[in-house]
């Protein structure tokens, strides 16, 4: 399984829609990492680009609901609204730790748990519901 972590300043990039760089990590060989520059232009093109590069899982920061749906429809398993130091997040993912509670973006914790239960949970929650 190959996962793409969108990164910026050694942390998970805050907004996937405009993220410039993705770090590709293979679960089978975590030492073999690749850094990809994501294409400019429409945000949907970033998803297509990741799919073309054989990515199965996307771990990213904030992502708009439409883009999230597009990613899921394209066959990606999406873990949105993740925040934290990139190495800590990658380690947690490689060790199958339940990192979603530790590394969620401020104000987006409950969404994470909903997201794990099924697709389409990200953009469905009303603002402030998790407070």
């Amino acid at each position: 399984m190959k996962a793409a972590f969108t990164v910026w300043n050694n942390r998970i990039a805050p907004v996937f829609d405009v993220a410039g760089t993705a770090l590709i990590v293979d679960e089978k060989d975590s030492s073999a990492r690749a850094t990809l520059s994501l294409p400019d232009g429409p945000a949907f093109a970033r998803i297509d680009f990741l799919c073309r590069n054989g990515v199965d899982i996307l771990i990213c920061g904030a992502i708009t609901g439409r883009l999230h749906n597009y990613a899921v429809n394209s066959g990606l398993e999406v873990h949105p609204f993740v925040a934290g130091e990139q190495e800590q997040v990658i380690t947690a993912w490689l060790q199958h730790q339940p990192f979603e509670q530790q590394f969620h973006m401020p104000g987006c914790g409950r969404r994470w748990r909903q997201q794990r239960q099924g697709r389409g949970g990200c953009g469905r929650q009303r603002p402030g519901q998790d407070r």
Partner: protein
Amino acid sequence: MSGGATTPTDAILESICDGVFTVDKQWRITSFNRAAEQITGTSREQALGQPCSEVFRCNLCETACPLRQTLRDNRPTVNRDAYIINAAGEQVPISISTAVLRDGAGNIIGGAETFRDLSEVEALRRQISGRHRLGDLVSRSPAMHAVFELITAVAASSDTTVLIQGETGTGKELAARAIHNLSSRATAPFVAVNCGALPDNLLESELFGYKKGAFTGAERDKPGRFELAGTGSIFLDEIGEISPALQVRLLRVLQERTFEPLGATTSQPCHARVIAATNRDLQQMVDEGRFRRDLFYRIQVVQIDLPPLRRRSEDIPLLCEHFITHFNKVLRRDIRAITPAAMGCLMTYRWPGNIRELENIIERAFVICPGNYIDVEHLPPHLRRCAQAAVGTTTIDTARHQSERELIIATLKRTGYNRSACARELGIHKTTLYRKIKALGIELPASDGRRRSDDIS
């Protein structure tokens, strides 16, 4: 603000409707007012001490943070347009202003950012422009407004299968997305499949999926597009390209509302609405026996015909404006308009590639044009040639003037530029001839038929 409204400044910040937060030099949030909580969907307790980019989630954070620029240049930013993604995953349009934050001794201790929620302004703007817009379709043509009405009606009936017909580049997928987004299925996925892009066996596994072991290399179950669409919509583009065998399978899905993944022993229910599209004449294909009649009637419950761009040329300026706004945003340019001469070229062209071709031509002009206005020289040569050829034949008046001009010049030459003789030969009064000579810009020689050269000497 960090603990509660205790000082007059805190009380003021709590009462205003603009979001305000401050950061220290490490970009950690040190205060966060109530409006900021409402706009971002993040509580103060969750925000304090966190990196501002992870709380604010703005499209400018990574590449063009206004606060970073302010602290670097010591200059405030005022009303910069941007968007944030709130805790619900929604894009919220905002305008940002920033300032340097100093302590009592004048030392920089961080920065302050205020932001205004522009959602309502944006909604009003959309409402105004929405008169010419449905989803991503833009038009002020009466022909397209009839299509808009049909799309709105079809969207309301959320189970009806729809067939969209139109030449290439007329916006079939945009129409399908508009139907999906306006329907009660909008929150479910919209899955698009180009039936003409895949060979038959691949398309079958793409549409219906397969089970582990169904064929060599099928190491795990793979859901098909019908399954991925769930209760949403599946858009089958270029439906006219599918093979007779697949037509039978698709017919079964539409009739039974079930499908079987490759290698499966049981059927799965299909809940998705089917929207099909083609640039072919399906009725003709049916008549020629190349498309199943029963499938045709199944998918053509409602048919939407998208007119080509040449039949709605009044939309060209509006579409140009739309694409200029789009590419200014995407390519970070500041193109303001298309010059009248260039617009003239665009209006006279036939547009075989329709709106997609227009979009490509505007994008090309963005690459070539160094300034703020797209001119004739930024258009492709074939389009300029077409416009030049069209200039002389566009109106009957132009044709008549050209013909009159040629006739008068020929008669004048024959009569040695004697205007009375010329007028007589043409059967018009001499003053009419003078008027026409002047109006048509006919140049007369220095010596003409009124005065012979020997008279002068």
